């Protein structure tokens, strides 16, 4: 490999990484915590008990729908997984002639328990917010956000490839870690987090692009089909739509159908059920398998007659490239992953987040020594240095603020769920501002320390309220015990980072060298 080639890739790596680094840090961190989406959902709705038996919840859901929306066009019932409480339902009312169809209205959805009664929990977006934010962002139109996130993900892919090329001694460097050596420490740390989980970084970036490939790269579909709808019909075959017969007929019991479908799939769990034209002789029940039992997100479906319970249609398994796409998306989302594998996902995600963060800090550390006048750095340098604080230290603080808003905002508050999110952005805005206004080193220490204290405070707050760690432990709810312990551990880790940054004293080697504020070894050790 020629030196010129490597040099060109080094510049490409530096700049493609810097331009999108802060966004990538945000996407990585939000995506990483989303591996615990169901647990965050439950933690943010402490009113709800633990999970119930899926079959009983479906019976409750049907009883509720038969009372509430007996003449709906469609019922959609999500079957709760092992970590979810209740079934979230929505229904599509019969379209009224002359009126546009109604979509996404709050009065056509509910969360229902096994007794058929709506479950009452505080209004919150829960962990879903982190998940959606990591590709939809917030306060901006979804399509723009997805294009922007896709652009950044593509830059990440280029940064990874050019980073590998830049790295001539990839294995030797991996076993090199020079502590307390300023820039070298940062470089070694960046290399270690990058190489350690390199397959993960490549996989997660590529498969992330694949999840939205129909948006980013629709041209292959255009090449083969005059209307791209035809491709989607070929890719996602579904049972033909039905006409209402106009003859009333009672809906069969759904539980035997669930058991039949599960048996046909070799014991897979059920993910969702759609009932079309309930109460009519033409009624149809379509059962779709859960994504937890296969790597691919292409889950099979079976349709039954709603009046007789006879099976009338079954989806074919996906094959070839279509199956490959389903598997790639499945590997990205990790919904199939057991708890152990999920921890590996989570830790790899943290590795990726730290890799991006250390790359951003390295940019600053590398340039500090070369500044013509260290006391008056040029605008670009200051901008990067200060934005690093507001993102790397500020975002975890803001996310903790979101969790605190969930506990502190009044339960009866109007648009409560929205205000939880506003609270996160208010904290983040304050952190970004403080990053510019406070001396840099102080800002790093303050924000890391505050995040640590706030994280530790969350389980303590719940303990004082009579719930939390001990309540969950007594109830045998190990998932919520784990959630509380994880918050505590993360809090301790952030405090350790803050302490390390505060104690850091760079050795003055050169006259020109500014008293560095680099929190270098701290983050790295926390990540180890």
């Amino acid at each position, binding site marked *: 490999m020629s030196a010129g*080639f490597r040099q*060109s*890739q080094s*510049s*490409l790596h530096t700049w493609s990484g810097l331009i999108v680094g802060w966004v990538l840090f945000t996407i990585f961190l939000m995506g990483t915590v989303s591996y615990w989406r169901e647990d965050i959902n439950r933690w943010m709705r402490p009113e709800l008990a633990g999970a119930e038996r899926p079959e009983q919840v479906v019976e409750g859901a049907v009883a509720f729908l038969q009372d509430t929306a007996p003449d709906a066009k469609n019922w959609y019932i999500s079957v709760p997984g092992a970590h979810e409480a209740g079934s979230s339902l929505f229904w599509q009312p019969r379209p009224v002639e002359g009126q546009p169809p109604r979509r996404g209205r709050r009065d056509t959805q509910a969360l229902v328990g096994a007794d058929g009664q709506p479950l009452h929990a505080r209004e919150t977006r829960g962990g879903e917010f982190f998940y959606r934010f990591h590709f939809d962002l917030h306060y901006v139109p979804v399509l723009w956000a997805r294009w922007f996130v896709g652009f950044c993900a*593509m830059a990440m*892919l*280029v940064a990874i*490839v*050019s980073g590998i*090329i830049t790295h001539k001694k990839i294995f030797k460097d991996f076993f090199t870690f020079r502590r307390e050596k300023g820039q070298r420490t940062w470089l070694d740390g960046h290399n270690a987090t990058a190489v350690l989980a390199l397959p993960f970084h490549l996989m997660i970036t*590529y498969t992330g*692009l*694949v999840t939205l*490939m*129909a948006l*980013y*790269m629709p*041209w*292959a*579909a*255009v*090449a*083969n*089909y*005059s209307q791209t709808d*035809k*491709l989607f019909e*070929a*890719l996602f075959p579904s049972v033909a739509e039905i006409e209402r017969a106009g003859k009333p007929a009672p809906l069969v019991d759904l539980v035997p159908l669930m058991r039949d479908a599960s048996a046909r799939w070799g014991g897979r769990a059920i993910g969702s059920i759609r009932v079309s034209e309930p109460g009519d002789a033409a009624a149809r029940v379509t059962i779709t398998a859960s994504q937890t039992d296969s790597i691919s997100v292409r889950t099979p479906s079976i349709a039954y007659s709603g009046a007789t319970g006879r099976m009338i249609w079954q989806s074919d398994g996906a*094959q*070839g*490239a*279509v199956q*490959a*796409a389903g598997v*790639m998306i499945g590997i990205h989302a990790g919904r199939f992953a057991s708890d152990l594998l999920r921890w590996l996902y989570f830790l790899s995600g943290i590795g990726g987040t730290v890799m991006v963060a250390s790359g951003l800090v390295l940019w600053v550390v590398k340039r500090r020594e070369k500044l013509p006048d260290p006391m008056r750095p040029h605008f670009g340098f200051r901008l990067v240095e200060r934005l690093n604080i507001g993102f790397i230290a500020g975002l975890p603080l803001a996310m903790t603020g979101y969790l605190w808003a969930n506990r502190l905002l009044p339960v009866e508050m109007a648009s409560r769920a929205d205000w939880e999110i506003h609270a996160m952005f208010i904290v983040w805005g304050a952190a970004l501002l403080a990053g510019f206004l406070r001396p840099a080193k102080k800002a790093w220490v303050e924000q890391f320390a505050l995040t640590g204290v706030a994280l530790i405070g969350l389980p303590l707050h719940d303990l004082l309220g009579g719930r939390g760690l001990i309540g969950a432990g007594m109830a045998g709810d190990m998932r919520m015990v784990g959630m509380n312990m994880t918050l505590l551990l993360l809090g301790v880790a952030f405090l350790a980072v803050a302490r390390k940054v505060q104690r850091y004293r760079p050795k003055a080697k050169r006259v020109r060298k500014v008293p560095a504020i680099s929190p270098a070894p701290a983050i790295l050790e926390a990540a180890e």
Partner: protein
Amino acid sequence: MKPARADKLAVWGRIFTAVPLGYAATSLLVMAVARLVPGDRAQAAVLATLLSFAIYAALIVYVFAASSARKAFAVTLALAALGGGVTWISIASGGRL
């Protein structure tokens, strides 16, 4: 033109070649792949789409590694023409579903 200014222009030229032009060239190459892969049309379209991000990344890496910005531009343009040409001939002769 001063050398520094020429350098800057060359860098911006590479960025233009890599990002928007590279996307266009990738799209046309991906269309050609979707046309040329035999068998089921839906499978071919999905396969070509899955490969697209690797093609785009490789093209960007090449554009910044090429010995000159001019050469990178010319090669990218040629790849776009190749993809577009194959796609055009294939659709004109075979049509779409």
